[in-house]
């Protein structure tokens, strides 16, 4: 069903291209936005453009940031000898919410998924290996507990161990098949605490 306004139709099209947003929801959001005051809509549009212009990937941990290195990588309170490896920036937020982890992060930008055409070279794995120095370091592999997360964990352990670094993976307190970002903080805390040699 096409609307009588080309511009409205265009907004609906953009919105419905977003994850989990179907066409019906997109229509509802578009019509809602249409009813908002002009300033509100302008502020939202500007926020979107700002986000795109101002953010970049932290050259150290590959997380999304506005300053490079990011606040976590710069913080003197962080234990620089521990690196928690996660799939996505949202996983950093999930672990941060526990308030139990005080090391650094490394965001891979996904997991190995050959069926979807994602191989090791498509992830920030070289950048992770480059961070391993000669000191007393630990790398915690905290990927989602599904088959892809597990295979990526095994693969990274294979590359990291010869470098002489301590490699652990989070314990299986996280329910199988669930995504880290949807797991409650207490469960992530326990999983971090009970991490095992990878």
């Amino acid at each position, binding site marked *: 069903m096409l609307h009588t306004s080309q511009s409205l139709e265009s907004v609906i099209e953009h919105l419905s291209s977003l994850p989990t947003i179907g066409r019906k929801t997109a229509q509802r959001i578009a019509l809602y936005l249409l009813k908002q005051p002009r300033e509100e809509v302008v502020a939202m549009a500007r926020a979107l453009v700002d986000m795109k212009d101002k953010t970049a990937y932290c050259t150290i941990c590959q997380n999304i940031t506005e300053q490079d290195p990011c606040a976590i990588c710069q913080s003197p309170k962080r234990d620089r000898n521990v690196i928690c490896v996660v799939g996505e920036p949202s996983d950093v937020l999930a672990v941060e919410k526990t308030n139990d982890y005080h090391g650094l992060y490394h965001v891979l930008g996904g997991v190995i998924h050959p069926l979807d055409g994602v191989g*090791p070279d498509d992830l920030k794995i070289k950048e992770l290996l480059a961070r391993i120095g000669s000191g007393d370091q630990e790398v915690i592999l905290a990927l989602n507990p599904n088959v*892809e997360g597990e295979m990526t964990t095994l693969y990274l352990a294979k590359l990291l161990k010869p470098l002489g670094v301590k490699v652990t993976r989070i314990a299986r307190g996280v329910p199988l098949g669930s995504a880290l970002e949807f797991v409650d903080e207490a469960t992530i805390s326990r999983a971090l605490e009970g991490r095992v040699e990878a």
Partner: protein
Amino acid sequence: MRIRRLTFQNIRNHTATQLLAADGVNIITGMNGQGKTSILEAISVCTLTRSFVGTQDASLIRRGEKFFESSVEGVSDYGVTRRFDVRYDPNIGKTIRLDGSPAGNAAQVIGAAPTVVLSPDMKAISGGGPGERRRFIDMVISQAKRRYLEDLMQYRRILKQRNAVLATGLKQRRPVDRNLIETYDEGLIERAAHLMMERTQFIEEFAPLLAQTARDVADGADHVAIRYQPDCVREPRTSVADYRDALWLRSKQVFAEEQRRGATLFGAHRDDIRMEINGGDVRVAASQGQHKTLLIGLKVAEFHYLARQCAETPIILLDDIFGELDAYRAERVYDLTRNLAQVFLTVVSFDMLPFLRGRNLGESEANIEVVKGGIVEQKIPTSGSGQIDNEAKVYL
């Protein structure tokens, strides 16, 4: 397990159907295409989390509708009330609940109400390729052991990923990342070794059951044997570690060939299960009639195996098998299953159950007539179980 009530929406040509089941045999009658089998599928959707007809979930949805759902309420052998709810919406996926709580995956539900399904297509178990026999034993063991189904689902996923690595290497004409392929080897072999050990144990327990039931069904005329033929080894091994070693060895031997072909050439997906009748391979030695009796033997053996492993009497679904059997065998199957468990069977008309002619339905038998995706009339004998409404009629 006894099903008390089945409720479902938008499955095939049904809109909203409710059925109150009798404890014994539920005879579902109706012309072809009216929706008899869909009732069995609705049960299967709950207890096996999917239809036993090998179709995609989406193709079960009634035309023009956006989802289907099915609920089963039943009572376990120990008198505990159990409830299964499955809803499928292509946009959301499948939501499975057991006793009202969300189940993380199918493995948490399958086996709670073990279900034995018999349909004429299943003659492929004895007559078809190795894949048909693997599918059969996978479904049986999955109901008996949760870990098996989890390993199997993960195995299939890892296999697909490993094949993708090999296929990409082939297409791009470059050697695959050795670390990556070894990662998938580890994941694959760990699951394969467990699956193969479980299959070994299963066949050990199942073979004598099958020999017995096949003899019973064929009145002692046929000697039936079943043997497991795992990939990578000549004879079944006795431990997971043995299988693991054999798989590792084979993975190294076939790797060069795998790169040439772009596919995984070792593992549990290459197992076969050999079946013999009177000493010969069933695929060549069995007559059409023998395949039919063999299927009944397999299913009765499955029933006994599941009853023992799950400590719960399985539900029996007989889809349209009575047209395939002569009057003598039909009566044997009817009486045999009726004495074992709660049965749901589909049949075009009572003409196909001539042995019931001239006798009234017993206390625990019911007739459900289906017309155009709705139950027209449900007759349950008056002295039936108190929990079931008499003469429940559901009009649409």
